[in-house]
């Protein structure tokens, strides 16, 4: 009950914050532009994918950490009320992830609606893109909680958040490629699958590309996934792994919140 109340006031606060509005406008402008450059629904989804995989982790982890550092005293005040820590954690988490996820979903969906591409061939890929974006938002908000609770130094925390993003969203692929290059003589399918499961951004990319049938863009990990599992089982496994990525940081964040000295 109190969880919902905390979330309600968070949403009220977020609705008036310029960040959330700017974030929604960004996706709106990007999606609209892709349509205007002559894209059909499906191609727009494909182009948006790269934006989503890069931008959502970045904003979720950085805005998440910034919010938590900025709310330190507010959290203390709420904890001095008869409220349990677990309740407050759930309320804050929902109050942070919901505005970010809805800003993204609304920003992408509106251009699809008025360009008349919402229903039809693009429906499934679009819903998949929205789902992946929402999952990545929640995952990176959870990572932001872990980081902001682990260090009280705001600059250090934001630095770690940026480093985590840089590693997962960009450097990771390079490392996988380097491994493939170095150990090209060995059978690499299984290690590469394991490596992809360890990165939520990679998982999001594979999940989307398996369904979009865009093999040319799939890269080595995606191709291995498809050969190994086929599109259907591959999707099940990547989705399951994404949910594990959601559950584990969430649980770790909640535990850190329960033990934190405020």
């Amino acid at each position, binding site marked *: 009950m109190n969880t919902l109340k905390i979330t309600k*006031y968070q949403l*009220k606060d977020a609705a008036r914050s310029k960040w959330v509005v700017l974030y929604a406008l960004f996706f709106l402008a990007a999606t609209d532009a892709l349509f205007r450059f002559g894209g059909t629904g499906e191609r727009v989804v494909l182009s948006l994918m790269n934006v989503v995989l890069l931008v959502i982790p970045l904003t979720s982890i950085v805005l998440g950490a910034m919010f938590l550092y900025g709310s330190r005293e507010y959290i*203390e005040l709420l904890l*001095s009320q008869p*409220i349990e820590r677990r309740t407050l954690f759930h309320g804050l988490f929902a109050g942070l992830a919901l505005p970010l996820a809805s800003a993204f979903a609304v920003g992408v969906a509106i251009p699809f609606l008025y360009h008349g591409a919402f229903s039809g061939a693009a429906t499934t890929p679009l819903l998949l893109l929205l789902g992946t974006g929402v999952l990545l938002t929640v995952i990176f908000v959870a990572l932001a909680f872990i980081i902001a609770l682990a260090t009280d130094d705001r600059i250090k925390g934001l630095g770690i958040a940026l480093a985590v993003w840089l590693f997962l969203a960009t450097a990771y692929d390079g490392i996988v490629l380097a491994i493939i290059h170095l150990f090209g003589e060995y059978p690499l399918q299984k290690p590469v699958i394991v490596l992809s499961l360890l990165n939520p951004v990679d998982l999001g990319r594979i999940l989307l590309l398996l369904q979009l049938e865009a093999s040319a863009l799939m890269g080595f990990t995606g191709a291995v996934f498809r050969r190994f599992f086929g599109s259907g089982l591959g999707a099940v496994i990547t989705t399951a792994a994404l949910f594990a990525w959601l559950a584990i940081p969430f649980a770790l964040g909640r535990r850190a919140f329960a033990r934190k000295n*405020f």
Partner: protein
Amino acid sequence: MIRVRGLNKRFGRLQVLRDLDLEIEPSRVTAILGPNGAGKTTLIKSILGLVKPDAGEIRVGGVRVNGDGAYRRDIGYMPQIPRYPENLTVEEILHMIQDLRGQFDDLDTELVDAFDLGPQLRKPFKHLSGGTRQRVSAVIAFLFRPRILFLDEPTAGLDPVASSALKDKILRERAAGRTIVLTSHVMSEVEELADMVVYILDGTVQFEESVTGLLERTGEPNLERAMARMMLRVVA
């Protein structure tokens, strides 16, 4: 009312509280004094459950503090730096706390009038001055008529009018039988408000005495001089 036994807390290499024992009597104003970094705020935060002690026991009104937050229903807290969601107005913040507590009646809004907060009620929190934030925080601390009040540097940042209004309020609430714990660096203020003085240094209570007892024992004319004498004795 509040009993602390063998409280220990370490932040990294810094031992902030060291086997701290303390008894806070009901229906009195107790001032916790000590230099910056002595552990005053950590002690208050431990009692509120914001800081998790490494060892020791805290009881508030007989209830052991162990992670269940229900005992905080009896507590009002005014922190050193108050902050609420930037975009909510004062009115909405007051409503939010009532909503979270589930208590909309029998509220003490005396301070809203005493501080003349009426014109500020519809402003978003981010546009409030430091002094106004402090006043909002005081209103919230007293709002639910809690039996116990923790006021961390309550008058810091307040203008003389607001500061006097708050001190009057503290004395009225004391007369009404509430237990009040405050910290302050202004000795004249402590002398005016407090019945008991607790002096903390290096994470332990160095002495605990009534204000009148302290004045008598040292023979000094005011609390500032009496404290100075006692502090020199502690160092020696």
